Every structure is written in structure tokens, then in C-alpha cells.
């Protein structure tokens, strides 16, 4: 039997009442639990990203050292929230660059290549790409890592089991297990700084301005000029992770 207008209106009215009740309930929760209510920072007003200019990075390692001290990252090798890689692309085989990162660049880069061997040499600073569709978040079985409403991939240390799924899932190798807590650790984009109006520690100490924190939701942020005026690239775009670390002048050989 076809529905007549009366039945349709009554039915949709009921749905509307139930739905608006649910919406009101959700709003109440959001208002009660939203952490962005903290004074001076509205979590829904920002969308953080980083711009990196390859042709400015000199491999000094300032970012690596500053990150470790700012975020209490273990000083032993192989624990990094940010690190710098050195690329040497030989002319004969551009598909197979030589990449090294002695202690992540913490102590700078002792010279490896001869000047006459030079073909294409450059540094690539790396950090969490703060993907909008993060593979690491998708695999967490307990909801201990998440994309915050302002676009930062964070870890809930109280919830993390240390199962390492996310360490394997990150295509950029940006996560590690902190040997002291046995929970996962990663770049928070200096969340404790950027939510207080400061820039990240790595951007703070970069002497050449090779790195710049940007807020994509702020129309006056210089990152918009950067993105407009440079040919930018993200790492592994074929994975469609929604990476928000934009590299200008990145060579195709960089992984």
C-alpha cells in the first residue's frame, strides 16, 4: 500500500523528534567534555600543518636536538620524534639514492661524500606527517591514538597498551616505543607549545627557516603564501594518508 501524505508526515515527525533529542544529547556531551574549552585555545579553530623548504635545510641538526630536549625523548640512538636524512643521488642510478642519518642528525653530519662525487645531494628533515587519514590511528585497537580536531595525531599514554601495531602501520616510520614507559611515542607537533601560541621547538631553533609551522584555518598564516608560491609535495602521496607536512623542492628520489 503506498504511503499517503499523512502517514509520511507523522513518520518523519517522529524521526525528527528522536533525532533532535539525540543531537541535543550529543551537544551536551560535546560541551561538557570538549577539552578545547581551555581558556585561550579553541581546538576547532585550527588545522595544523608544517611547511619544509628542502633548499634551505643545511643539516645542522638543531631541530633534532631541540626536539629531544623539549619533549624528553630518550637520548640513545634510534629514538626520534624528528630526524634529518641525508640523500646522495648518484647520476648513474637516480632510483637508488644513498640515504643515511647518523644518529638522526643529532650530532650533525660528518662529511661522507667527496666534492667531485657530487651529483644531487640534499637533506630531508622528517617528522610525523600528521595525516588527516592516518594509518596508525586506524589500526589502534584501543583508541589510544587519534587525530585531534585541530589536525594533530596524538597519543593517549594512559590508554596505550604498547602493542606496536601503529609503529608498523606508519608508512613514514615516525613512531617508536619509549623504553621507559613501554608506550608509543611520536611527534605531537609540540602540542603543548602550539596551543599556547608558540611555534614548535624544531621551528624555533631552525636557523635558516627551513621549517615553518602553519595553521591552515588561519587565512593570515604565511603557510598559504608558501603553498601557493612553491611546488609542494608530500611524502608517499600514493598512500593517500592526507599528510600535512608539505615539502617544497623535494626530489622524486626522496622516500
Amino acid at each position, binding site marked *: 500500500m503506498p504511503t499517503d501524505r499523512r502517514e509520511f508526515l507523522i513518520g518523519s515527525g517522529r524521526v525528527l523528534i528522536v533525532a533532535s533529542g539525540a543531537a541535543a544529547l550529543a551537544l551536551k556531551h*560535546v560541551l561538557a567534555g570538549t577539552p578545547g574549552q581551555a581558556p585561550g585555545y579553541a581546538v576547532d579553530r585550527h588545522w595544523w600543518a608544517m611547511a619544509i623548504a628542502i*633548499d634551505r635545510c643545511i643539516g*645542522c641538526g638543531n631541530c633534532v636536538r631541540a626536539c629531544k630536549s623539549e619533549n624528553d625523548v630518550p637520548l640513545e640512538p634510534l629514538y626520534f620524534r624528528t630526524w634529518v636524512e641525508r640523500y646522495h643521488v648518484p647520476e648513474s642510478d637516480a632510483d637508488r639514492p644513498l640515504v643515511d642519518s647518523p644518529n638522526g642528525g643529532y650530532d650533525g653530519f660528518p662529511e661522507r661524500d667527496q666534492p667531485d662525487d657530487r651529483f644531487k645531494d*640534499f637533506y630531508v628533515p622528517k617528522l610525523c606527517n600528521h595525516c588527516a587519514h592516518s594509518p596508525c590511528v586506524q589500526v589502534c585497537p584501543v583508541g589510544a591514538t587519534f587525530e585531534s580536531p585541530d589536525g594533530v595525531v596524538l597519543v593517549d599514554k594512559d590508554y596505550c597498551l604498547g602493542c606496536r601495531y601503529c609503529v608498523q602501520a606508519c608508512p613514514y616510520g615516525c613512531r617508536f616505543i619509549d623504553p621507559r614507559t613501554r608506550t608509543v611515542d611520536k611527534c605531537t607537533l609540540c602540542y603543548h607549545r602550539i596551543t599556547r601560541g608558540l611555534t614548535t621547538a624544531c621551528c*624555533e*631553533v631552525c636557523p635558516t627557516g627551513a621549517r615553518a609551522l602553519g595553521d591552515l584555518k588561519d587565512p593570515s598564516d604565511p603557510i598559504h603564501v608558501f603553498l601557493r608560491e612553491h611546488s609542494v609535495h608530500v611524502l608517499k602521496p600514493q598512500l593517500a594518508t592526507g599528510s600535512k607536512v608539505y615539502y617544497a623542492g623535494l626530489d622524486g628520489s626522496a622516500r
Partner: protein
Amino acid sequence: MAHRFSDIEHLLRLAAIFIAGIVLFVAVRAVLVPDDFGVLGHYRAGAIEDNRQRPLVHAGAEACGECHDDVVASRTGGGHESIRCEACHGPLARHATEPSDQAPELPDAASVCLRCHLPAVAKPEAFPQVDPAEHAGNEPCDACHAAHAPRLEGS
């Protein structure tokens, strides 16, 4: 009627066990899952605030300039003007909060300058690179250059 129920009593018992199990699950879950879990997504919303609770280690150049405005002024127009203080002086947030708490160390010009300016194949060619042995017989850079505005001193 009583006869009919006695036939399916085993099913009713099974159903009762299932219902008790579900009630127990819901009750335990309500106790264990924090109230703010799921508010913003499949995570504990309070974790965002937890991530903000970390002390600053780098103060930021604006904090330095509040007291050291003379140094800021001396950098104006120099090649190092855009470099922020803690790039060379190291993290000094405690000093910025309470100057007597943390005494800043003067960076050693013989090593701190070379962190950036030592020649390397991978550095951008436009970046000024200097071999200290060839350039000045390993004299420390600040013998001739002022680090805050690195022209030749007196020029």
C-alpha cells in the same frame, strides 16, 4: 499453559544467562570506560588536554626579547637577524621564567658557528660555508666576527 513453558524451560534459562551476561558487560563497561571516551571520536577526549600538560623547555625568542632588547636591537640588519635566540644559546625556558634558576652558557664560537657553516656537499650551494683552517687558520670565528651581526667587527 504451565505445560507449554516446561517444554522450553531450557531455552528460557539460556536466555536468562545471556541477558545476565549482557547486563554484566554493560555495567562493567560503564565503570571502566571514561565518560569522555567517544565524545569527539574513538578516543578519550581528555587525552587532548593531557598532551598540553608538558612544561616548556624552549622559551621562544619573544620571551628573550622582553629583557634582552639591547641584543635584539644589535641583531637588526645583520645576517643572523632572523635566527632565533635558542638556536645557538640552547633551551632556556627556565631562565625566561626565573633568570636565577638557569644560568645560560655562552656558546663556544669555535664549534657553534661551524655547526652551520662547515662546508658540506649536501648543503645548499647558496649557503655561506667556510673551512675554518683555510679561512682563518682555525682562529675562533668571534675573533673577527660578531655573532649577533656577523659582519667583520668594526666594518
